[in-house]
């Protein structure tokens, strides 16, 4: 098991290295020069060279690459062109903001989605519950991801005026954790959080349902029922067995959905890392964009590893060597 984890970690590092390399060159071959965007006109050629050097944009592409990777190893992502401070310092608050909607959103989405999937899968085949459950999940899944957000905004913000429709409120001088532990923040949080949950429900629901539908005809389910346990307990046996395919899908999906949260952040003007990433690309702020992609690739790789390890916990038949 330890050898397996070690091997997987080495493989993961290789993947991150490759992704980082590709990201580095992709930004460099894009047909634009950031210096023209960020440098005020009238700067002398000499001053421009100084700035280029400071940003690590001098020398050949190869030299830039070696320097960049070397800095990365020491945890230095370079300085943001736009904010004129270290990329990591720029990203960090945005990451926190994103985690506030992503983590509870994904967890609740998975729990609610798979719970509903179990109910829909256990309902009589071809009945009302099954048909409406599948229909609803398909509609949400099929709609473009911004539609749900815009509808939430239209109903709860514009029409009912229950919650604000923009940003994450004003911390009013509060610092540290107190920035987040106040009613105003929660008030702003609720709608984007709901959007993430809804965004995440359908796939959990459909996967869980098909697993349960498959499991309910298994011989062991018949025997569990014969034992005279409650119907809920029988359904739990089916659900527990259906979690295996769900987990394989869930963890990589978590990471991908971090990227999907971009849409939610943009619709609700939530200052998260996804929205900042899009802005950084538009601004040609390479260090920030690269750092964001670097973090994302690490998350995806770790999520895959977590999926495999959880799988062996859930299914005693899976043994890693």
């Amino acid at each position, binding site marked *: 098991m330890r050898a397996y984890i070690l091997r997987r970690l080495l493989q993961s590092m290789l993947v991150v290295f490759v992704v980082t390399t590709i990201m580095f060159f992709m930004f460099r071959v894009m047909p634009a020069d950031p210096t023209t965007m960020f440098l005020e006109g009238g700067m002398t050629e000499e001053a421009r060279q100084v700035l280029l050097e400071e940003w690590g944009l001098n020398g050949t592409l190869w030299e830039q690459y070696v320097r960049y990777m070397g800095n990365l190893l020491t945890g230095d992502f370079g300085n943001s062109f736009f904010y004129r401070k270290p990329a990591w310092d720029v990203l960090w608050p945005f990451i926190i903001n994103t985690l506030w909607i992503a983590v509870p959103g994904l967890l609740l989405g998975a729990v609610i989605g798979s719970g509903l999937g179990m109910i829909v899968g256990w309902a009589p085949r071809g009945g009302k519950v099954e048909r409406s459950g599948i229909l609803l999940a398909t509609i949400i899944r099929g709609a473009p991801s911004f539609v749900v957000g815009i509808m939430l905004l239209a109903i709860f913000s514009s029409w009912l005026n229950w919650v604000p429709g923009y940003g994450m409120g004003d911390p009013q001088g509060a610092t540290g954790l107190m920035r987040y532990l106040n009613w105003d923040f929660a008030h702003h949080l609720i709608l984007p959080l709901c959007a993430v949950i809804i965004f995440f429900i359908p796939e959990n629901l459909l996967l869980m349902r098909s697993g349960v539908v498959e499991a309910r005809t298994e011989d062991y389910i018949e*025997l569990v029922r014969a034992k*005279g*346990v409650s119907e809920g307990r029988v359904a739990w046996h089916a659900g527990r067995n259906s979690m295996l395919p769900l987990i394989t899908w869930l963890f990589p999906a978590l990471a991908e959905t971090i990227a999907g949260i971009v849409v939610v952040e943009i619709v609700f003007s939530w200052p998260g890392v996804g929205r900042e990433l899009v802005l950084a690309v538009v601004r040609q702020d390479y260090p920030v964009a690269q750092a964001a992609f670097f973090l994302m690739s690490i998350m995806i790789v770790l999520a895959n590893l977590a999926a495999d390890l959880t799988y062996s916990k859930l299914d005693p038949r899976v043994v890693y060597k």
Partner: protein
Amino acid sequence: MSMTFEALCTSLESKPPVRLQVQDLSVTYSTSKGPVRAVSQINFDVEPGTNFGLVGESGCGKSTVVKSLMRLLPDSAKVGGKVLLDGKDVLAMDRKALAAVRWTQIALVTQSAMNSLDPVFTVGDQIVESIRAHVDVSHAVAWARAEQMFAMVGLPAERLREYPHQFSGGMRQRAVIAMAFSLNAGLLLADEPTTALDPIMQDQIMSRIRDIQQRLHRSMVLVTHDIAVVSETCETVAIMYAGRIVEMGPTRDVLNKAYHPYTMGLQNAFPRIRAKGESKPPLISISGGLPDLLHPPKGCRFEPRCPFSTERCRAEDPELRPVGTVMAACHHIDRAEEFRRAALKAETWRVEEDVQ
């Protein structure tokens, strides 16, 4: 107050065996092509503490009968008639009463050893689940009972902590048997308990079941297609064909002096133990297959495959009638002696090519 282990064992051991009376049991599956009557109006009684064999070829409805006794059939199956456990009708019970009867009064050993245990729970937890669903005992007490049951079927107690995939097929089937006896139910349903196993294991498992049955004095319905197993295990046997009982009675009488041609044919299809000097009888199969139950034949259901069929068999459906110590559903019970002799010859069962 939850029970102690001793109190649990005492209360379970004092359970009497159950009397089962099946009256006019019918099962109809609704399919897209129309209703299929898998079981039609079956009647039989299992006296407390006796073993009852239900024999027939695959698809004759014997498993459907067993499942309907526990109400395990899917909703698409309509079940009619009565299933009386000590006089109480299982088919008329509400959900709660049914759950209370399952496993405490009537337990099941299922057909496929490989798939009847949930792969993601330990075997011990699955046995504990069956106990704690019905009796108020702690996990530790239920576990001790599971250990006791494992010892009874000859499995080491520490394997209770393992998962089904760590068991061989024979061990799994023994675990399922251990689970079936966990609450010492008054009636055991064994649905082809050895079909998935190799012959040596089959023999071991069957003698294990027989031993336990003898010791605990339970009632049992044993479903099988193996006549030899029935003759060793059951006092009474019913032969099923196409959803009906065609012959029923004391096992010895039915097997030694069959009245129904299907019973005769079924015996031919199994190897027999010969007396010294007796020549080896050939294995003879019954050609053809079960009738289409969407459109069952008007007359006797066995008529298309019966070597002795007559005009009357084609026109009229025979009733199950008493003859001697048994009951048989054949129009020509009076010619049984003659049939029995002819049935031993292979050429009797050879189909003549249909020339049209």
